[in-house]
């Protein structure tokens, strides 16, 4: 009995974790992000990435997109706990595998290399909507939009072309088709 001296019960069986994208519409007021993020850290939920910005200036609404992992029970709790927060209007939850939802992340890559490598670097990015934002003889800043794991892979593969710095956003999400999440 490893934990027999504990005043608390022993952890039960662990269930499988799934990745979910949680979208939260909140009043854009002081401390609201701290409330949402504090709820995650306080209750031991994961945040893999986070994106937040005001989306409706008239109504003063911000949209927070959180990528998280958890068992179905935990993900349920996350949604229910979020809904209890006073400034939260609505909460949407998508599984990463969901075909009806588009997920995108953006990344900025800075390359410092000779021109030959810089050209190769740009070519390597071609599947991910590359945009050159800045260019000098020795360097290039390229913006791409892609899925999380694609960017992970890219940032690994591109080091050979002189990748020196990566800056990336959290994922944002939107449903496909004409339906709007209510």
């Amino acid at each position, binding site marked *: 009995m490893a934990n027999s001296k504990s005043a608390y*019960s022993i952890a039960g069986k662990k269930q499988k974790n799934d990745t979910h994208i949680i979208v939260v519409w909140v009043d854009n007021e002081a401390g609201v992000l701290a409330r949402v993020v504090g709820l995650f850290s306080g209750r031991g939920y994961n945040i893999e990435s986070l994106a937040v910005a005001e989306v409706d200036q008239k109504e003063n609404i911000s949209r927070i997109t959180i990528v998280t992992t958890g068992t179905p029970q935990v993900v349920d709790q996350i949604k229910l706990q979020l809904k209890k927060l006073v400034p939260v209007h609505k909460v949407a939850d998508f599984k990463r595998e969901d075909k009806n939802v588009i997920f995108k992340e953006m990344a900025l890559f800075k390359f410092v290399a000779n021109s030959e490598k810089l050209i190769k670097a740009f070519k390597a990015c071609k599947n991910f909507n590359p945009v050159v934002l800045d260019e000098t003889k020795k360097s290039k800043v390229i913006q791409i939009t892609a899925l999380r794991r694609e960017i992970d892979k890219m940032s690994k593969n591109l080091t050979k072309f002189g990748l020196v710095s990566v800056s990336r956003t959290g994922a944002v999400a939107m449903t496909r088709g004409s339906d709007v999440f209510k």
Partner: protein
Amino acid sequence: MPKLYSGAEIVFKCLEDQGVSHIFGYPGGAVLPIYDELKNFNSIKHILVRHEQGAGHAAEGYARSTGKPGVLLVTSGPGATNAVTALTDAYMDSVPLVCITGQVPTHLIGTDAFQECDTTGITRPCTKHNWLVKDINDLAEIMHKAFEVATTGRPGPVLVDIPKDIQFQKTKYRNYKKVKKLNGKSHDNFSQKNIDDLIGLISKAKKPIFYTGGGVVNSGPKASELLRELVYATGFPITSTLQGLGCFPADDNQFLGMLGMHGTYEANNAMYSCDLMINIGARFDDRITGKIDEFSPKSKKVHIDIDPSSINKNVKVDLAIVGDIKSVLTSTLKTLKKSKKNFSKSNKHQISNWWEKIQKWRSKRSLDYIGSEETIKPQYAIERLYELTKDRDAYITTEVGQHQMWAAQHYKFNKPNRWMTSGGLGTMGYGLPAAVGVQIAHPKKLVVDIAGEASVLMTMQEMSTAVQYNLPIKIFILNNEYMGMVRQWQELLHDKNYSESYTAALPDFVKMAEAYGCVGIRAKSPEELDDKIIEMLNTDRPVIFDCLVDKQENCFPMIPSGKPHNQMLLGPKDQKDKKITGKGRTLV
């Protein structure tokens, strides 16, 4: 030109409009403008505590015993941080509190000013919501919203942080009309189908049990009445959590006593073996469930709760009914009466085997203890206290530890709102200030804090408050010189290594009572106990009662950590008859 009011005046205007009659507080630099206005608002009485934690617990006691929100007013910095324990306590036990804190002037926020702290940051995880008022024009709206959030849905604490300059600024105030809004963010969104499903389960069950909690208290006295009606209409057994005690009369035959870690043998075994569990306003807390994987393995579980996030949090349930207990029970009773007349009679046969089984468990008499003629057994002290006070509609508060469990086991509650205890957070030092709050709300009633000598020392300074306001609270200390529950765990789990659980220097509580200007009584032996208790009850002043009890007594029955309900440790009487097997011994 309409009249302009200062922020401080608006605070009181709002409190007046919310029907607040008492606030508990402690002045300080950042709330002085509010304190300055106090004299102009006669309908609001301020109770000066001795420590802000005491203000919080007093407000909790006030709220729990009345059903109205408790209000506390404290200063910035240390005033706010001292209130954090009480706010967390209220958050865990769903007690509606409105905490008003002063803050340094807006231009000094963020400069590490004198007595500045990030109050809203610190209290964010222990309140339902909090506000920092940055604009005088928002103040009234925020104040009213604060009351709404605290009292609707699952109740809880809120905090309004008001910088000092805002308290001086002036603006208009529009009188507030209270709109009856019951549920705030959570809604009564159960359907008739839910109720029909519940009735279906009820009529099929052969081994049913009601498992009720603090939600019934929070739903108001009417909910307790409806609960009784439902329990009688079904003939089912009922058990209650610590917080739910009093919703159903403890001396009724259908009541199995409290369940959980120190619950009765019959309640826990019934929970383990039942085929239908109807949870009404409880939250499957880990002190209740024991080992989750083996929690009531064969039952269908119904969960009635106002808070959707309570459902499936710890235990997966088969039928969830989200709503206010009162309205759910009303619909259930209506449907039951319509579809199954005389259900308890027709159903009697179906559950008769179940009741026989329960009677067998009951015959174990798991709350029994070995009496003594030399020393006062703590259980005996509570039993006597109960017998001598049961006709007086007493209000009982407790601290946290063995005495708390003994009180829950041996004091029989028959009405809701009579039992104030810190369950979720387990805050030692809760009971004395809570008793102050209860006595403020019910000046003519008997209020007893069943205490331990270690707990009560944590907030002892509030005796001074009790004396100041002539509050005849009775502090009934079961004094065993140990932090009893700690000692018990050390005895059972840590090879009797009583590390730091003995208090080698305790004050003389009788002299201390006298020093505070109240009355001290000491009972040393069982034969004088009754007389001393009667002396206490006949004293119309605050009393500290130092009851010297058996120092070695443990609180049984007990479910050891990580064990399911059917593996209970019973008291010494049973252990003598039936030794714990070798395996059982290693398990604890």
